């Protein structure tokens, strides 16, 4: 203790310099801790969200984009795929679970996913209160959605077109909350699940005169996007819509009453590209009788004949993607290759894409990590310089310590204590800052996005960081301490004596 007391007393003689050294070390450590925790959280979250999904089938394009859009719900989809073509693979004996997805809308930033109950099975999710969706426009919301949006069972809400908040709303029909999911700690918490028909209906509303016949809504006359000349062949293209012109919309709407599915999708669209791409989904096909587990029983009155409609469109219904779980790991060897070679679909395996994405993210993290180490090395050099500088002025003090009976080792420890006190304070402050920052970001993410972050958890890499920091700190303090150890007492004292 006496050496720590002496070290503390010596450091307190020059508080500003000591504070700067501690701050430097704290900043470097905090940066490194922050990067480790962020990297661990990203890896953990990505792995957790993709757990149980072996393969994703979607439209050709970037496999990373396909995974990001359909597994993480963090990007726009690559396009639509034919339901018939997808079914060829979902019914393959090598598949244990298949969950089709229809994307395109959101509510307050939470994505609305048209799917089937197999989706819950895929994610080990279950309904905590209420029940699962049975009819179109019934929605089951994730735990985070419920917490953030304050939606309760029985509440109704409008879906917004696209994935960004502020997009125009589908005011022709409302979703009704019929169930709330258990929190599962994955992306499911942040999703709104509904039937495939809901999405198809909503995006086909221009073709089906919903605005005339839906009697459970009060806002049917609102600004649906223009569905002028929809056609099945255009569903994978980026249609151009003009969402801003109500008059034009009404004219288009009138056209849609004719149920003409050979629309031409080249009308104007003044939204951004992302919106356009999002728009690619479900606006061309309007099948109201998808062969799902439950009957398609609209509680509103469509003025078209589903059966008749199905006859001419059964082969052209589209979805966004299908999430698959293999029955056997051997499927991983053959199925992806077969899909890519024998169909117009693209297959993407989440583990491979996660690795690819993490490599890209990792490059950025590596750069930042290098910067953090520059800060840490600077801090160590600064501590080294401070201790080495103080050696000159304190050579006689060290000699006096020896005269009072201190051994060389004790003098070494005295000097080492000072360096370690500085670096320990900096490292501790850095770890506190790093975790504090993650706690702050975690609270913000929890409140704004419903993403849970384990801010106080200790990442294994932090132990390595701590050991490395201890070694570097020890080295930076040990060099001046070794000089102190070698202090020539006779010379130091004679400089001030006879």
């Amino acid at each position, binding site marked *: 203790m006496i050496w720590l007391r002496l070290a503390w007393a010596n450091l307190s003689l020059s508080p500003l310099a000591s504070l700067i050294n501690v701050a430097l070390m704290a900043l470097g450590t905090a940066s490194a801790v922050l990067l480790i925790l962020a990297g661990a959280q990203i890896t953990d979250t990505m792995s957790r969200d993709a757990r149980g999904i072996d393969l994703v089938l979607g439209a050709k394009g970037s496999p990373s984009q396909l995974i990001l859009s359909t597994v993480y719900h963090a990007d726009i989809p690559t396009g639509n795929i034919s339901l018939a073509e997808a079914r060829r693979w979902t019914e393959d004996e090598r598949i244990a679970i298949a969950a089709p997805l229809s994307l395109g809308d959101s509510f307050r930033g939470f994505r609305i996913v048209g799917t089937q109950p197999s989706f819950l099975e895929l994610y080990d999710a279950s309904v905590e209160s209420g029940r699962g969706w049975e009819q179109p426009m019934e929605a089951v919301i994730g735990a985070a959605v419920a917490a953030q949006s304050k939606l309760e069972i029985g509440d109704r809400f409008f879906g917004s077109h696209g994935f960004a908040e502020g997009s125009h709303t589908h005011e022709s029909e409302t979703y009704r909350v019929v169930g709330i999911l258990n929190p599962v700690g994955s992306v499911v918490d942040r999703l709104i699940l509904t039937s495939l028909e809901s999405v198809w209906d909503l995006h086909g509303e221009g073709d089906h005169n919903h605005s005339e016949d839906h009697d459970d809504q009060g806002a049917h006359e609102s600004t649906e996007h223009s569905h002028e000349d929809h056609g099945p062949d255009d569903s994978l293209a980026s249609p151009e819509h003009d969402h801003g012109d109500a008059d034009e919309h009404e004219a288009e709407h009138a056209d849609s009453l004719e149920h003409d599915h050979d629309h031409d999708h080249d009308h104007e669209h003044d939204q951004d590209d992302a919106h356009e791409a999002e728009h690619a989904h479900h606006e061309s096909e309007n099948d109201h009788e998808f062969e799902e587990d439950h009957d398609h029983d609209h509680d509103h009155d469509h003025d078209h004949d589903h059966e008749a409609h199905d006859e001419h469109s059964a082969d052209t219904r589209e979805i966004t993607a299908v999430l698959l779980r293999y029955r056997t790991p051997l499927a991983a060897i053959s199925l992806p290759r077969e899909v890519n070679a024998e169909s117009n679909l693209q297959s993407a395996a989440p583990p491979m894409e996660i690795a690819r994405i993490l490599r890209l993210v990792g490059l950025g993290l590596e750069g930042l990590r290098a910067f953090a180490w520059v800060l840490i090395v600077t801090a160590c050099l600064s501590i080294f310089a401070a201790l080495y500088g103080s050696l000159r002025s304190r050579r006689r*003090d060290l000699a006096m310590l020896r005269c*009072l009976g201190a051994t060389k080792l004790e003098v070494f420890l005295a000097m080492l204590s000072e360096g370690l006190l500085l670096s320990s304070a900096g490292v501790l402050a850095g770890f506190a800052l790093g975790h504090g920052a993650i706690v702050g970001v975690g609270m913000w993410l929890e409140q704004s996005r419903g993403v849970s972050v384990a801010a106080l958890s200790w990442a294994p890499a932090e132990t390595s960081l701590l050991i490395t920091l201890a070694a570097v700190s020890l080295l930076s303090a040990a060099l001046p301490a070794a000089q102190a150890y070698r202090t020539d007492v006779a010379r130091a004292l004679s400089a001030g004596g006879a």
Partner: protein
Amino acid sequence: MQSAIYVRDLVFSHGDAHTLSIEEFELPGKQSRAVMGPSGCGKTTFVQLLAGLLKPHAGSVKVLGTDLSTLSGSEADRFRGQHIGFVFQQLHLFPALTVKENLRLAQRLARSPADEEYLHRLLTHLGVENLGQRRPDQLSFGQMQRVAVARALAHKPALLIADEPTSSLDNNNAAATIDLLMKSAEEAEAALLVVTHDERLRGRLDGEYPLGGGE
């Protein structure tokens, strides 16, 4: 009574140019001696030989009956810490520590049990009992000198060595300082060795030893 210091046939040299040679020197216990000589005659070297910080090339240096040349480095450190107190011209109080902490450090390094009552008595005896919580930069030179003496005696050594304690002081302060050292050593029942080139101290201690033949 056992000699505080006994030196016989001592030879120590810094290369060929500087050689310290002492045929015989003795300081009996509880007495005082002045080792006098001009600057550069090897007085500080002699102090370091007595402290066990240097080892003689020939002869023996015994302090309190112990031949320091037979001790290892760390043994010599411990011996010095326990049995010898030092007062230097430059004082060398630790600037970061308070007066009390300076004294406690001396006790701690001597491996003596903490004795706050003794430290208080010591400070009271030296007239600086109210300065215990002050740091050296808050003291006058005279006060610092008293604290330095107190620190040298904090662990109750049997030998007090003062290296040039009066060289930068005026006559009054030089006289006061030497009085302080003699009185303190007497109170502590310690032998006192003053190494100095200050001619004003001639005749003030129990005996004198001229040093100067070695260079």
